[in-house]
Protein backbone atom coordinates (compact mmCIF):
# COMPACT_ATOMS: atom_id res chain seq x y z
CA UNK A 1 0.00 0.00 0.00
CA UNK A 2 1.29 3.46 -0.85
CA UNK A 3 2.11 5.60 2.18
CA UNK A 4 -0.18 8.58 2.72
CA UNK A 5 2.06 11.64 2.46
CA UNK A 6 -0.64 14.25 3.04
CA UNK A 7 -0.07 16.97 5.61
CA UNK A 8 -2.41 15.43 8.19
CA UNK A 9 -1.10 11.88 7.70
CA UNK A 10 2.57 12.85 8.05
CA UNK A 11 1.92 14.92 11.18
CA UNK A 12 -0.04 12.01 12.69
CA UNK A 13 3.08 9.83 12.28
CA UNK A 14 5.20 12.46 14.05
CA UNK A 15 6.13 10.42 17.13
CA UNK A 16 7.25 7.32 15.29
CA UNK A 17 9.24 9.38 12.77
CA UNK A 18 10.97 11.21 15.62
CA UNK A 19 11.78 8.04 17.53
CA UNK A 20 13.38 6.46 14.49
CA UNK A 21 15.29 9.58 13.51
CA UNK A 22 16.97 10.52 16.80
CA UNK A 23 17.50 7.03 18.21
CA UNK A 24 16.05 8.03 21.60
CA UNK A 25 12.95 6.55 23.21
CA UNK A 26 11.86 9.62 25.15
CA UNK A 27 9.06 7.71 26.91
CA UNK A 28 11.76 6.03 29.05
CA UNK A 29 12.40 9.34 30.81
CA UNK A 30 8.83 10.34 31.66
CA UNK A 31 8.06 10.67 35.40
CA UNK A 32 4.93 11.53 37.37
CA UNK A 33 2.13 13.23 35.44
CA UNK A 34 4.04 15.98 33.66
CA UNK A 35 7.71 15.53 34.54
CA UNK A 36 10.69 13.78 33.01
CA UNK A 37 14.17 12.93 34.22
CA UNK A 38 16.24 15.61 32.51
CA UNK A 39 19.58 14.70 34.08
CA UNK A 40 19.21 11.04 33.14
CA UNK A 41 18.36 12.02 29.56
CA UNK A 42 21.54 14.13 29.43
CA UNK A 43 23.69 11.46 31.12
CA UNK A 44 22.50 8.81 28.69
CA UNK A 45 24.13 10.61 25.78
CA UNK A 46 27.19 8.65 26.85
CA UNK A 47 29.39 11.63 26.06
CA UNK A 48 31.07 13.31 29.03
CA UNK A 49 32.86 16.65 28.81
CA UNK A 50 36.29 15.10 28.18
CA UNK A 51 34.99 12.91 25.36
CA UNK A 52 33.15 15.80 23.73
CA UNK A 53 36.29 17.92 23.89
CA UNK A 54 38.27 15.17 22.19
CA UNK A 55 35.66 14.73 19.45
CA UNK A 56 35.48 18.48 18.83
CA UNK A 57 39.24 18.91 18.78
CA UNK A 58 39.46 16.33 16.00
CA UNK A 59 36.77 18.11 14.00
CA UNK A 60 37.74 21.76 13.91
CA UNK A 61 35.64 22.82 16.86
CA UNK A 62 36.42 24.53 20.16
CA UNK A 63 39.49 26.10 21.76
CA UNK A 64 38.38 29.47 20.45
CA UNK A 65 40.16 32.54 21.83
CA UNK A 66 38.78 34.61 24.70
CA UNK A 67 39.64 38.21 23.79
CA UNK A 68 39.57 41.30 25.97
CA UNK A 69 37.96 44.34 24.33
CA UNK A 70 39.98 47.17 25.91
CA UNK A 71 38.63 49.90 23.64
CA UNK A 72 34.99 48.91 24.07
CA UNK A 73 35.61 48.78 27.83
CA UNK A 74 37.17 52.27 27.68
CA UNK A 75 34.13 53.49 25.74
CA UNK A 76 31.80 52.14 28.43
CA UNK A 77 33.87 53.80 31.17
CA UNK A 78 33.42 57.18 29.45
CA UNK A 79 29.69 56.96 30.13
CA UNK A 80 29.86 55.09 33.48
CA UNK A 81 29.99 56.54 36.98
CA UNK A 82 33.49 56.75 38.54
CA UNK A 83 34.78 53.29 39.47
CA UNK A 84 32.22 51.60 37.20
CA UNK A 85 32.67 49.81 33.86
CA UNK A 86 33.61 46.12 34.01
CA UNK A 87 36.27 44.62 31.73
CA UNK A 88 34.54 43.15 28.66
CA UNK A 89 35.73 39.92 27.04
CA UNK A 90 34.37 37.98 24.06
CA UNK A 91 34.67 34.29 23.36
CA UNK A 92 35.42 34.50 19.65
CA UNK A 93 33.34 31.58 18.48
CA UNK A 94 33.55 32.69 14.86
CA UNK A 95 36.81 30.68 14.79
CA UNK A 96 35.00 27.34 14.84
CA UNK A 97 34.84 25.61 11.45
CA UNK A 98 31.69 27.04 9.76
CA UNK A 99 31.99 30.26 11.75
CA UNK A 100 29.84 29.99 14.87
CA UNK A 101 29.34 28.19 18.18
CA UNK A 102 26.73 26.05 16.43
CA UNK A 103 29.60 23.84 15.26
CA UNK A 104 29.81 22.59 18.85
CA UNK A 105 26.24 21.33 18.64
CA UNK A 106 26.57 19.95 15.13
CA UNK A 107 29.78 18.10 15.96
CA UNK A 108 28.14 15.87 18.55
CA UNK A 109 24.94 15.40 16.55
CA UNK A 110 26.94 14.25 13.51
CA UNK A 111 29.25 12.09 15.62
CA UNK A 112 26.19 10.37 17.05
CA UNK A 113 24.63 9.92 13.62
CA UNK A 114 27.83 8.28 12.36
CA UNK A 115 28.07 6.06 15.47
CA UNK A 116 24.50 4.87 14.98
CA UNK A 117 25.14 4.07 11.33
CA UNK A 118 22.89 6.67 9.71
CA UNK A 119 23.71 7.54 6.10
CA UNK A 120 22.87 11.20 6.49
CA UNK A 121 21.61 14.00 8.69
CA UNK A 122 18.77 16.51 8.37
CA UNK A 123 18.41 19.80 10.18
CA UNK A 124 15.58 22.32 10.05
CA UNK A 125 17.28 25.68 10.41
CA UNK A 126 17.61 28.99 8.60
CA UNK A 127 20.65 29.98 10.61
CA UNK A 128 24.25 29.17 11.43
CA UNK A 129 23.30 25.69 12.57
CA UNK A 130 22.68 24.62 8.97
CA UNK A 131 26.19 25.60 7.93
CA UNK A 132 27.53 23.90 11.05
CA UNK A 133 25.75 20.61 10.33
CA UNK A 134 26.78 20.74 6.67
CA UNK A 135 30.40 21.37 7.65
CA UNK A 136 30.49 18.55 10.20
CA UNK A 137 28.61 16.18 7.88
CA UNK A 138 31.32 16.80 5.26
CA UNK A 139 33.98 15.70 7.76
CA UNK A 140 32.11 12.49 8.61
CA UNK A 141 31.13 11.66 5.04
CA UNK A 142 27.45 11.94 5.92
CA UNK A 143 24.86 13.16 3.46
CA UNK A 144 23.15 16.31 4.62
CA UNK A 145 19.85 18.10 4.00
CA UNK A 146 19.14 21.52 5.47
CA UNK A 147 15.52 22.72 5.48
CA UNK A 148 15.16 26.50 5.54
CA UNK A 149 12.33 28.97 5.89
CA UNK A 150 13.72 31.44 3.38
CA UNK A 151 11.29 33.39 1.17
CA UNK A 152 8.17 35.43 1.70
CA UNK A 153 5.08 35.08 -0.51
CA UNK A 154 6.63 37.42 -3.09
CA UNK A 155 9.73 35.26 -3.37
CA UNK A 156 11.92 37.79 -1.54
CA UNK A 157 14.61 36.04 0.46
CA UNK A 158 16.15 37.29 3.71
CA UNK A 159 19.82 37.94 2.73
CA UNK A 160 21.20 36.27 5.84
CA UNK A 161 19.32 33.06 5.06
CA UNK A 162 20.42 33.12 1.43
CA UNK A 163 24.02 33.40 2.63
CA UNK A 164 23.42 30.42 4.89
CA UNK A 165 22.09 28.41 1.95
CA UNK A 166 25.28 29.26 0.07
CA UNK A 167 27.45 28.10 2.97
CA UNK A 168 25.49 24.83 3.30
CA UNK A 169 25.82 24.14 -0.42
CA UNK A 170 29.51 24.99 -0.30
CA UNK A 171 29.94 22.19 2.26
CA UNK A 172 28.09 19.81 -0.05
CA UNK A 173 24.65 19.84 1.54
CA UNK A 174 21.29 19.83 -0.19
CA UNK A 175 19.22 22.86 0.79
CA UNK A 176 15.43 22.69 0.69
CA UNK A 177 14.05 26.22 0.78
CA UNK A 178 10.49 27.02 1.85
CA UNK A 179 8.19 29.99 2.10
CA UNK A 180 7.09 31.30 5.49
CA UNK A 181 5.03 29.06 7.72
CA UNK A 182 5.08 26.44 10.47
CA UNK A 183 4.31 23.79 7.83
CA UNK A 184 8.09 23.58 7.52
CA UNK A 185 7.73 20.88 10.14
CA UNK A 186 5.68 18.80 7.69
CA UNK A 187 8.41 18.99 5.04
CA UNK A 188 11.02 18.21 7.67
CA UNK A 189 9.13 15.10 8.87
CA UNK A 190 8.52 13.95 5.28
CA UNK A 191 12.22 14.20 4.52
CA UNK A 192 13.18 12.30 7.69
CA UNK A 193 10.72 9.56 6.78
CA UNK A 194 11.66 9.21 3.11
CA UNK A 195 15.45 9.37 3.61
CA UNK A 196 15.77 7.57 6.96
CA UNK A 197 18.40 10.15 7.95
CA UNK A 198 19.29 11.23 11.48
CA UNK A 199 17.40 14.19 12.93
CA UNK A 200 20.27 16.53 13.85
CA UNK A 201 17.90 18.58 15.97
CA UNK A 202 19.32 21.46 17.98
CA UNK A 203 17.34 20.16 20.91
CA UNK A 204 18.59 16.60 21.40
CA UNK A 205 20.91 15.89 24.34
CA UNK A 206 23.79 15.69 21.82
CA UNK A 207 23.06 19.16 20.46
CA UNK A 208 23.10 20.69 23.92
CA UNK A 209 25.93 18.63 25.45
CA UNK A 210 28.12 19.89 22.62
CA UNK A 211 27.86 23.44 23.99
CA UNK A 212 29.02 22.42 27.47
CA UNK A 213 32.62 22.67 26.25
CA UNK A 214 32.01 26.37 25.53
CA UNK A 215 31.09 26.97 29.16
CA UNK A 216 34.06 24.94 30.37
CA UNK A 217 36.55 26.74 28.10
CA UNK A 218 35.13 30.10 29.04
CA UNK A 219 35.73 29.47 32.73
CA UNK A 220 39.27 28.22 32.14
CA UNK A 221 40.12 31.05 29.72
CA UNK A 222 38.77 33.68 32.08
CA UNK A 223 40.71 32.29 35.05
CA UNK A 224 43.88 32.24 32.95
CA UNK A 225 43.39 35.79 31.67
CA UNK A 226 42.14 37.52 34.82
CA UNK A 227 42.71 35.19 37.76
CA UNK A 228 39.01 35.22 38.57
CA UNK A 229 35.75 33.67 37.50
CA UNK A 230 33.51 35.82 35.30
CA UNK A 231 31.25 38.06 37.37
CA UNK A 232 28.67 37.78 34.63
CA UNK A 233 28.29 35.78 31.41
CA UNK A 234 25.95 37.12 28.74
CA UNK A 235 24.39 34.64 26.34
CA UNK A 236 22.37 35.42 23.22
CA UNK A 237 19.12 33.51 23.71
CA UNK A 238 16.75 32.02 21.16
CA UNK A 239 15.89 28.32 21.49
CA UNK A 240 17.82 28.15 24.76
CA UNK A 241 20.46 25.53 23.88
CA UNK A 242 23.30 28.02 23.87
CA UNK A 243 22.44 29.19 27.36
CA UNK A 244 21.70 25.72 28.72
CA UNK A 245 24.90 24.15 27.41
CA UNK A 246 27.11 27.05 28.43
CA UNK A 247 25.66 27.17 31.95
CA UNK A 248 26.00 23.39 32.38
CA UNK A 249 29.59 23.48 31.20
CA UNK A 250 30.41 26.31 33.61
CA UNK A 251 28.77 24.46 36.51
CA UNK A 252 30.89 21.39 35.78
CA UNK A 253 34.09 23.42 35.61
CA UNK A 254 33.87 26.48 37.88
CA UNK A 255 33.01 24.80 41.18
CA UNK A 256 30.93 27.91 41.90
CA UNK A 257 27.89 29.65 40.52
CA UNK A 258 28.60 32.01 37.65
CA UNK A 259 25.73 34.45 36.99
CA UNK A 260 24.19 33.94 33.55
CA UNK A 261 22.28 36.69 31.73
CA UNK A 262 20.14 35.76 28.73
CA UNK A 263 19.87 38.45 26.06
CA UNK A 264 17.52 38.65 23.08
CA UNK A 265 16.70 41.25 20.48
CA UNK A 266 13.29 42.74 21.13
CA UNK A 267 10.94 41.87 18.25
CA UNK A 268 7.74 42.51 20.15
CA UNK A 269 4.70 42.85 17.89
CA UNK A 270 6.11 40.85 14.99
CA UNK A 271 4.41 37.51 14.34
CA UNK A 272 6.87 34.72 13.60
CA UNK A 273 4.45 32.95 11.24
CA UNK A 274 3.50 36.12 9.37
CA UNK A 275 4.43 36.29 5.71
CA UNK A 276 4.45 40.07 5.87
CA UNK A 277 6.52 40.35 9.07
CA UNK A 278 9.08 37.80 7.88
CA UNK A 279 11.23 40.32 6.02
CA UNK A 280 10.51 43.22 8.36
CA UNK A 281 12.86 41.92 11.02
CA UNK A 282 16.64 42.26 10.78
CA UNK A 283 17.45 39.29 13.01
CA UNK A 284 16.63 35.74 12.04
CA UNK A 285 17.60 34.41 15.47
CA UNK A 286 18.63 35.59 18.94
CA UNK A 287 15.31 37.39 19.22
CA UNK A 288 12.34 37.35 21.57
CA UNK A 289 10.16 35.68 18.91
CA UNK A 290 12.04 32.47 19.70
CA UNK A 291 13.45 33.36 23.11
CA UNK A 292 10.18 33.91 24.96
CA UNK A 293 8.14 30.93 23.68
CA UNK A 294 11.06 28.54 24.10
CA UNK A 295 11.81 29.76 27.61
CA UNK A 296 8.20 29.38 28.75
CA UNK A 297 7.58 26.14 26.81
CA UNK A 298 10.85 24.38 25.90
CA UNK A 299 9.07 21.28 24.60
CA UNK A 300 7.63 23.17 21.64
CA UNK A 301 10.81 22.15 19.79
CA UNK A 302 11.20 19.43 17.13
CA UNK A 303 11.84 16.61 19.64
CA UNK A 304 9.45 15.31 22.35
CA UNK A 305 11.61 16.59 25.22
CA UNK A 306 14.01 19.42 24.54
CA UNK A 307 17.43 19.25 26.15
CA UNK A 308 17.53 23.05 26.00
CA UNK A 309 15.91 24.31 29.19
CA UNK A 310 17.13 27.87 29.68
CA UNK A 311 14.90 28.81 32.60
CA UNK A 312 16.76 26.26 34.72
CA UNK A 313 19.95 28.28 34.33
CA UNK A 314 19.20 31.95 33.56
CA UNK A 315 19.68 34.40 36.43
CA UNK A 316 18.36 37.34 34.39
CA UNK A 317 16.72 37.85 31.02
CA UNK A 318 17.22 41.17 29.23
CA UNK A 319 16.34 42.54 25.82
CA UNK A 320 18.08 45.02 23.55
CA UNK A 321 16.78 46.66 20.39
CA UNK A 322 17.87 46.03 16.82
CA UNK A 323 19.38 49.52 16.51
CA UNK A 324 21.55 48.95 19.57
CA UNK A 325 22.93 45.69 18.22
CA UNK A 326 23.79 47.24 14.84
CA UNK A 327 25.44 50.17 16.63
CA UNK A 328 27.56 47.90 18.84
CA UNK A 329 28.45 45.68 15.86
CA UNK A 330 29.87 48.73 14.09
CA UNK A 331 31.59 49.88 17.31
CA UNK A 332 33.32 46.48 17.65
CA UNK A 333 34.55 46.81 14.09
CA UNK A 334 35.87 50.36 14.34
CA UNK A 335 37.28 50.15 17.89
CA UNK A 336 38.70 46.65 18.07
CA UNK A 337 39.23 45.77 14.41
CA UNK A 338 36.97 42.73 14.78
CA UNK A 339 34.23 42.35 12.15
CA UNK A 340 31.53 39.91 13.25
CA UNK A 341 27.89 39.14 12.44
CA UNK A 342 25.16 41.16 14.16
CA UNK A 343 23.09 38.22 15.45
CA UNK A 344 26.05 36.99 17.49
CA UNK A 345 26.53 40.49 18.89
CA UNK A 346 23.18 40.63 20.66
CA UNK A 347 24.93 39.61 23.87
CA UNK A 348 27.69 42.19 23.24
CA UNK A 349 25.11 44.97 23.02
CA UNK A 350 23.64 43.79 26.32
CA UNK A 351 27.12 43.55 27.84
CA UNK A 352 27.88 47.19 26.96
CA UNK A 353 24.83 48.22 28.98
CA UNK A 354 25.46 45.76 31.83
CA UNK A 355 29.19 46.51 32.18
CA UNK A 356 28.38 50.17 32.80
CA UNK A 357 26.69 49.31 36.11
CA UNK A 358 29.39 46.85 37.23
CA UNK A 359 32.60 47.68 39.10
CA UNK A 360 35.81 48.36 37.18
CA UNK A 361 37.58 45.32 38.60
CA UNK A 362 34.76 42.99 37.56
CA UNK A 363 34.72 40.86 34.42
CA UNK A 364 31.85 40.36 32.00
CA UNK A 365 32.13 37.69 29.31
CA UNK A 366 30.19 37.71 26.05
CA UNK A 367 30.15 34.04 25.20
CA UNK A 368 29.94 34.04 21.40
CA UNK A 369 30.57 35.76 18.12
CA UNK A 370 29.66 34.59 14.62
CA UNK A 371 31.22 35.12 11.18
CA UNK A 372 30.01 37.90 8.96
CA UNK A 373 29.95 38.38 5.20
CA UNK A 374 27.67 39.04 2.25
CA UNK A 375 24.03 38.96 3.36
CA UNK A 376 24.86 38.64 7.07
CA UNK A 377 26.85 41.83 7.43
CA UNK A 378 25.20 44.67 9.38
CA UNK A 379 25.40 46.90 6.31
CA UNK A 380 23.62 44.24 4.24
CA UNK A 381 20.91 43.95 6.90
CA UNK A 382 20.42 47.70 7.35
CA UNK A 383 20.31 48.19 3.59
CA UNK A 384 17.76 45.37 3.25
CA UNK A 385 15.62 46.80 6.06
CA UNK A 386 15.61 50.20 4.36
CA UNK A 387 14.55 48.56 1.08
CA UNK A 388 11.57 47.01 2.93
CA UNK A 389 10.41 50.44 4.08
CA UNK A 390 11.81 50.28 7.61
CA UNK A 391 12.74 53.72 8.93
CA UNK A 392 16.37 53.91 10.06
CA UNK A 393 17.49 56.93 12.07
CA UNK A 394 19.35 58.07 15.16
CA UNK A 395 17.46 58.72 18.37
CA UNK A 396 16.58 56.90 21.59
CA UNK A 397 16.45 53.12 20.89
CA UNK A 398 13.63 52.86 23.44
CA UNK A 399 11.34 54.33 20.78
CA UNK A 400 12.11 51.62 18.20
CA UNK A 401 9.04 49.79 16.87
CA UNK A 402 10.05 46.38 15.49
CA UNK A 403 8.93 46.04 11.89
CA UNK A 404 8.59 49.80 11.48
CA UNK A 405 11.79 51.39 12.68
CA UNK A 406 15.39 50.74 13.63
CA UNK A 407 16.55 53.43 16.04
CA UNK A 408 20.31 53.72 16.35
CA UNK A 409 21.40 55.28 19.65
CA UNK A 410 22.37 58.93 19.11
CA UNK A 411 24.59 58.69 22.20
CA UNK A 412 26.46 55.70 23.66
CA UNK A 413 24.74 56.12 27.04
CA UNK A 414 21.37 55.40 25.40
CA UNK A 415 22.36 51.74 25.02
CA UNK A 416 20.33 50.12 27.80
CA UNK A 417 18.87 46.72 28.49
CA UNK A 418 15.25 46.11 29.38
CA UNK A 419 14.94 43.68 32.28
CA UNK A 420 12.25 41.01 31.88
CA UNK A 421 10.46 39.68 34.96
CA UNK A 422 11.72 36.09 35.39
CA UNK A 423 8.99 35.30 37.91
CA UNK A 424 6.36 36.05 35.27
CA UNK A 425 8.21 33.76 32.86
CA UNK A 426 8.33 31.06 35.58
CA UNK A 427 4.59 31.31 36.12
CA UNK A 428 4.02 31.08 32.40
CA UNK A 429 6.15 27.91 32.18
CA UNK A 430 4.24 26.30 35.05
CA UNK A 431 0.93 27.23 33.43
CA UNK A 432 2.02 25.69 30.12
CA UNK A 433 3.18 22.48 31.75
CA UNK A 434 0.06 21.83 33.85
CA UNK A 435 -2.50 23.07 31.36
CA UNK A 436 -4.17 19.69 30.77
CA UNK A 437 -4.12 18.56 34.40
CA UNK A 438 -6.12 19.06 37.58
CA UNK A 439 -3.76 17.17 39.88
CA UNK A 440 -0.03 16.40 39.76
CA UNK A 441 2.29 14.21 41.82
CA UNK A 442 4.97 14.96 44.39
CA UNK A 443 7.73 14.37 41.85
CA UNK A 444 6.09 16.83 39.45
CA UNK A 445 6.40 19.63 42.01
CA UNK A 446 10.12 18.96 42.34
CA UNK A 447 10.35 18.84 38.55
CA UNK A 448 8.65 22.24 38.20
CA UNK A 449 10.93 23.71 40.88
CA UNK A 450 13.93 22.51 38.86
CA UNK A 451 12.39 23.72 35.61
CA UNK A 452 11.88 27.21 37.00
CA UNK A 453 14.96 27.31 39.24
CA UNK A 454 12.65 28.39 42.03
CA UNK A 455 11.77 27.08 45.52
CA UNK A 456 8.95 24.55 45.81
CA UNK A 457 6.97 27.16 47.75
CA UNK A 458 6.90 29.26 44.58
CA UNK A 459 5.56 26.29 42.62
CA UNK A 460 2.93 25.59 45.30
CA UNK A 461 1.66 29.19 45.13
CA UNK A 462 1.50 29.05 41.34
CA UNK A 463 -0.38 25.72 41.36
CA UNK A 464 -2.86 27.02 43.93
CA UNK A 465 -3.53 30.07 41.77
CA UNK A 466 -4.09 27.82 38.75
CA UNK A 467 -6.42 25.53 40.67
CA UNK A 468 -4.14 22.51 40.27
CA UNK A 469 -3.85 20.10 43.22
CA UNK A 470 -0.65 18.30 44.15
CA UNK A 471 0.27 15.28 46.23
CA UNK A 472 1.90 16.41 49.52
Amino acid at each position, binding site marked *: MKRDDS*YAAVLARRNEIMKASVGIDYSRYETGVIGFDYERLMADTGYDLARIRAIQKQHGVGSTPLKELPNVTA*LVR*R*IAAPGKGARIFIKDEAWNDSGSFKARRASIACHRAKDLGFAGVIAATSGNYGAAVASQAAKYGL*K*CIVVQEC*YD*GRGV*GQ*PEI*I*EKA*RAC*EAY*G*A*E*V*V*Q*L*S*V*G*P*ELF*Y*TFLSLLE*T*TGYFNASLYTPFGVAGVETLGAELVEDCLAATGRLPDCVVVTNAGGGNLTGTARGMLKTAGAHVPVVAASVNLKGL*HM*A*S*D*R*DFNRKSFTTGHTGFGMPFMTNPDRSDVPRSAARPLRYADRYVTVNQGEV*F*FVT*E*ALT*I*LEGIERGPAGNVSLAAAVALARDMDEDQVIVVQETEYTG*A*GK*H*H*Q*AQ*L*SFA*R*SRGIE*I*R*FGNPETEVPGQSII*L*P*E*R*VDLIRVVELDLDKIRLSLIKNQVKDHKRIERSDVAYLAAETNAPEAFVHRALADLGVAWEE
Partner: protein
Amino acid sequence: MVKKGTWVRIHRILLAPGERAENLPEDTRKVPFELWVKGFLTAEAEIGQNVEIITKTGRSEQGTLETVEPSYRHDFGAYVPELQEIDRIVLTTLDGGRR
Protein backbone atom coordinates in the same frame (compact mmCIF):
# COMPACT_ATOMS: atom_id res chain seq x y z
CA MET B 1 16.17 24.03 -24.43
CA VAL B 2 17.97 23.10 -21.19
CA LYS B 3 20.17 20.02 -21.49
CA LYS B 4 19.88 16.90 -19.36
CA GLY B 5 22.36 17.00 -16.47
CA THR B 6 22.22 20.80 -16.08
CA TRP B 7 22.27 22.18 -12.50
CA VAL B 8 18.89 23.87 -12.01
CA ARG B 9 16.45 25.12 -9.43
CA ILE B 10 12.82 24.02 -9.39
CA HIS B 11 9.76 25.32 -7.62
CA ARG B 12 6.68 23.51 -6.33
CA ILE B 13 3.61 24.49 -4.37
CA LEU B 14 3.30 22.11 -1.41
CA LEU B 15 0.07 23.47 0.05
CA ALA B 16 -2.43 25.75 -1.67
CA PRO B 17 -3.82 28.63 0.43
CA GLY B 18 -6.90 26.56 1.38
CA GLU B 19 -4.80 23.60 2.54
CA ARG B 20 -2.56 25.46 4.96
CA ALA B 21 -2.24 24.85 8.71
CA GLU B 22 -4.79 26.31 11.07
CA ASN B 23 -4.01 29.25 13.36
CA LEU B 24 -1.95 31.06 10.72
CA PRO B 25 -1.98 34.85 10.51
CA GLU B 26 -4.31 36.12 7.78
CA ASP B 27 -1.49 37.28 5.47
CA THR B 28 0.21 33.87 5.53
CA ARG B 29 -3.05 32.00 4.96
CA LYS B 30 -3.57 33.93 1.72
CA VAL B 31 -0.39 32.65 0.06
CA PRO B 32 0.61 29.09 -0.82
CA PHE B 33 3.30 27.13 1.01
CA GLU B 34 6.12 26.81 -1.53
CA LEU B 35 9.34 24.86 -2.00
CA TRP B 36 12.52 25.50 -3.98
CA VAL B 37 15.28 22.94 -4.41
CA LYS B 38 18.29 22.49 -6.69
CA GLY B 39 19.55 19.48 -8.57
CA PHE B 40 20.57 17.95 -11.89
CA LEU B 41 17.93 17.81 -14.61
CA THR B 42 17.10 14.21 -15.58
CA ALA B 43 15.87 15.01 -19.11
CA GLU B 44 16.00 17.84 -21.61
CA ALA B 45 13.34 20.48 -20.83
CA GLU B 46 12.22 24.09 -21.21
CA ILE B 47 11.97 26.68 -18.45
CA GLY B 48 8.44 26.61 -16.99
CA GLN B 49 7.97 22.89 -17.68
CA ASN B 50 7.34 20.32 -14.97
CA VAL B 51 10.62 18.42 -14.60
CA GLU B 52 12.43 15.87 -12.47
CA ILE B 53 15.78 16.58 -10.82
CA ILE B 54 18.22 14.55 -8.74
CA THR B 55 19.36 16.52 -5.69
CA LYS B 56 22.77 16.52 -3.98
CA THR B 57 21.70 13.67 -1.70
CA GLY B 58 20.43 11.62 -4.65
CA ARG B 59 16.73 12.27 -4.09
CA SER B 60 14.29 12.69 -6.94
CA GLU B 61 12.23 15.88 -6.82
CA GLN B 62 9.67 17.26 -9.25
CA GLY B 63 8.55 20.79 -9.93
CA THR B 64 8.55 23.68 -12.35
CA LEU B 65 11.92 24.41 -13.92
CA GLU B 66 12.66 27.94 -12.73
CA THR B 67 16.38 28.79 -12.88
CA VAL B 68 19.22 27.36 -14.95
CA GLU B 69 22.62 27.25 -13.24
CA PRO B 70 21.45 29.28 -10.24
CA SER B 71 24.08 31.44 -8.54
CA TYR B 72 24.37 33.59 -5.44
CA ARG B 73 23.76 37.31 -5.80
CA HIS B 74 23.53 38.42 -2.17
CA ASP B 75 25.95 41.19 -1.26
CA PHE B 76 26.82 43.85 1.31
CA GLY B 77 23.86 46.03 0.37
CA ALA B 78 23.72 49.69 -0.56
CA TYR B 79 25.82 52.34 1.16
CA VAL B 80 24.44 53.02 4.64
CA PRO B 81 25.58 56.50 5.73
CA GLU B 82 24.60 55.84 9.35
CA LEU B 83 27.57 53.51 9.77
CA GLN B 84 30.04 56.39 9.38
CA GLU B 85 27.99 58.41 11.84
CA ILE B 86 28.21 55.55 14.36
CA ASP B 87 32.00 55.64 13.91
CA ARG B 88 32.02 59.36 14.60
CA ILE B 89 29.84 59.03 17.73
CA VAL B 90 31.93 56.17 19.09
CA LEU B 91 35.32 57.81 18.45
CA THR B 92 34.19 61.18 19.78
CA THR B 93 32.85 59.58 22.95
CA LEU B 94 36.05 57.60 23.45
CA ASP B 95 38.60 60.37 23.17
CA GLY B 96 37.06 63.42 21.57
CA GLY B 97 37.79 62.03 18.11
CA ARG B 98 41.60 62.29 18.43
CA ARG B 99 42.10 58.79 17.04
